[in-house]
């Protein structure tokens, strides 16, 4: 199952953007991750797919040091997360949450401006960047900037979440079920937007989803998480042909729907 891409990344001189080396994590006595290995290269979009409770979100929390491993190491640009200043680390990692997590007491523009302000940008720079980002996610700043998050639709909120994560131009974007709560039409619209934005910004992206269709729509490589391990990691085309018992059930809904699997590799 090892593809040519993985081989190439392993042989590069520069450290990988994100690397898990034999990471284990327990919640109490229960193991959440066991001997987890993963390498994500610069500019890649890796989708981690698995059932609920498979440990996918934990992987993201380990990257931005909301959690630290019990065993093994998580490296971000070659440096263990435990060696990073946690606040500096998190400001380099844009994070889009499942529930969006927009702050209800701030306007849309203020939400987007949070990280630039934390980093002490000058006010004109903050304003310019906020306007730029809202335009990028398709929300005209003059109209949407002063609104409260409560006045937005679910899809609009999710766009603001993406703009907020991109605000300080972080090299990495972590997305936890970002489109999970949306209706299918809005979701497919946002998938389209996502690809457009990724074409413009070229970030390293790790996206967690339980929906294999979403993974096929967005990712350059797909990882399958089951029982706390990474059981498959490959380009979508290879994943689609997988004979692995732990991968097949995730593909079943797609095949049943007769959906044509798009080759996005």
């Amino acid at each position, binding site marked *: 199952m090892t593809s040519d891409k993985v081989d190439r990344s392993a042989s590069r001189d520069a450290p990988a953007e994100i690397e898990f080396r034999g990471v284990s994590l327990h919640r109490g006595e229960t193991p959440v991750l066991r001997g987890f290995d993963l390498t994500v290269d610069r500019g890649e979009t890796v989708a981690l797919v698995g059932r609920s409770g498979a440990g996918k979100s934990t992987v993201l929390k380990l990257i931005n040091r909301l959690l630290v491993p019990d065993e093994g190491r998580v490296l971000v640009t070659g440096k263990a997360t435990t060696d990073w200043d946690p606040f500096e680390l998190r400001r380099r990692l844009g994070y889009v949450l499942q529930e969006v*997590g927009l702050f209800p007491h701030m*306007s849309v523009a203020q939400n987007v401006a949070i990280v630039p302000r*934390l980093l002490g940008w000058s006010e004109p720079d903050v304003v310019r960047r906020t306007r730029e980002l809202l335009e990028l996610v398709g929300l005209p700043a003059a109209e949407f900037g002063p609104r409260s998050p409560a006045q937005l639709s679910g899809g609009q909120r999710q766009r603001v979440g993406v703009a*907020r994560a991109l605000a300080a131009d972080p090299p990495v974007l972590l997305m936890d079920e970002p489109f999970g709560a949306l209706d299918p039409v809005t979701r497919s619209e946002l998938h389209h937007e996502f690809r457009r934005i990724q074409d413009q910004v070229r970030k390293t992206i790790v996206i967690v989803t339980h929906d294999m269709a979403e993974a096929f729509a967005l990712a350059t490589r797909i990882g399958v998480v089951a029982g706390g391990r990474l059981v498959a990691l490959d380009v979508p085309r290879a994943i689609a042909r997988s004979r692995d018992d732990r991968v097949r059930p995730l593909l079943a809904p797609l095949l049943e729907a007769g959906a044509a699997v798009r080759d996005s590799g």
Partner: protein
Amino acid sequence: MSVLEFWRTHSAELAGLLWQHLVLVAISTGAAIVAGIPIGVLAARHPRAGAPLVWVVNIAQTIPSLAMFGFLLPLPFIGGLGGRVAVTVLTLYALLPIIRTTLAGMRSIDPALIEAATSLGMTPGQRLARVELPLALPSIVAGIRVASVIGVGTATIAAAVGAGGLGEYIFRGLSMLEPTVVLAGAIPAALLALTFDGGLTLLERFMRAALAKGRIRSVLRYVGAAGVAAAAAIGVTFALTRSDPATIRVGSKNFTEQIVLGELVARLIETKTSLKVDRRLNLGGTFICDRAVRSGDIDLYVEYSGTAHSAIFHEAPSTDPRQVFETIRQRYASAGVTLFEPLGFENTFAILVRGEDARRLNLATIADASPHSPGWQAGFGYEFLQRADGYPGLAKAYGLTFKGPPRAMDLSLIYRALAQKQVDLIAGDATSGLIEGYDLFMLEDNLRYFPPYDAAIVARSATLLAHPELRGVLQLLSGRISATDMRRMNHAVDVERQDPAAVASAFLTRSGLR
């Protein structure tokens, strides 16, 4: 006299008391906000460290306010009469609601928002300032509202320790048995509480609305500015109203005779010297007055020899007036307090029954009453019930027994309770004007059980040294007030509803002392 009329004739005093009340509540609520919010935040962040703090504050809340004043009065820095101890007590009471609502506000925040804040790279301090506090704010304002309403109520009790405020009228009214005066203080206090409640409810609603619209920051800016302005205003008035060193502070206990005597001494000093007088009348009892004169919170007040002998210096009971007087003179002197010659009247405990009972049963002495007492209900003041020279000794000396355990009652209500037949025998003051007012009969202490209670001025020796003219002026009163004089003055206040200050002033004129 109607309440409106009272307010009209006392408008300047009312404004002063209202302002004092407001300042007490504002300072204590402010202090509780400054201390309570961090404690609430700490308790929310570190439940293990916070829980015991909340627990301690919970217990403090259950202590009755008067008891709390009693505990704190002797302490350095925060203790002492007047504003400081009152602010301390009010702050302790205001803490709990603020801590609780801060905690509840912090806990009600959606954990996803906390995770979002952390993931965006906020430090714990940034998260607190930018996310948690703004979101918890409406809840905290609700706590401040509750705290200020409790404060307005509790501050009325602060008058008992000389902190002033609207409680002055309430206590004064209670001791004069004058409902109008009680209402004159109680009504503005209630209105003040309603104003705080209403105003802060509006602020809370406004904040919740602003929060929902993402405009909480601009609201915070206004509230912050208003807070700073209020603090500055209070600070300036405090600085301007600091008491002048050439002021003599005259105290009194909280019953009519004491208030009249306090006024009398105060007016005499004002007429005969150029000193200013600060009246700290209506202080809550012997213990508080004694503490106050020793610590310098007041300069002088009128004490009774027997009370000083037993309740203050804990000497074994004695019935020799001269010996009692000499003993306490020496004890006072070693505490830096000068005891003046007696004023001329004695205010002993009076065992009282209804006049009709005395005539019907042909009673003259306490001994005459003891055969009848097993069918009677007795009512005594709190102090009398406790003191060695009070009820326990009296019952033993005369073999008195009653139908049930004696009822503990406030001194201001006890005469009326006897007149209205709620009780059949009470211990009151021999000089009370209500004895005639209610047609009560004083049984003679034929066994001379009660020690002598000669009234005399006690004053700080240091004050007398600093103002030599004072001693001569105070000596003018020695032997000048007879029991009849005193009873007449008490009657004028308690029964004829005259103003204590006017009664005192009339006496001075009549006696040629002014």
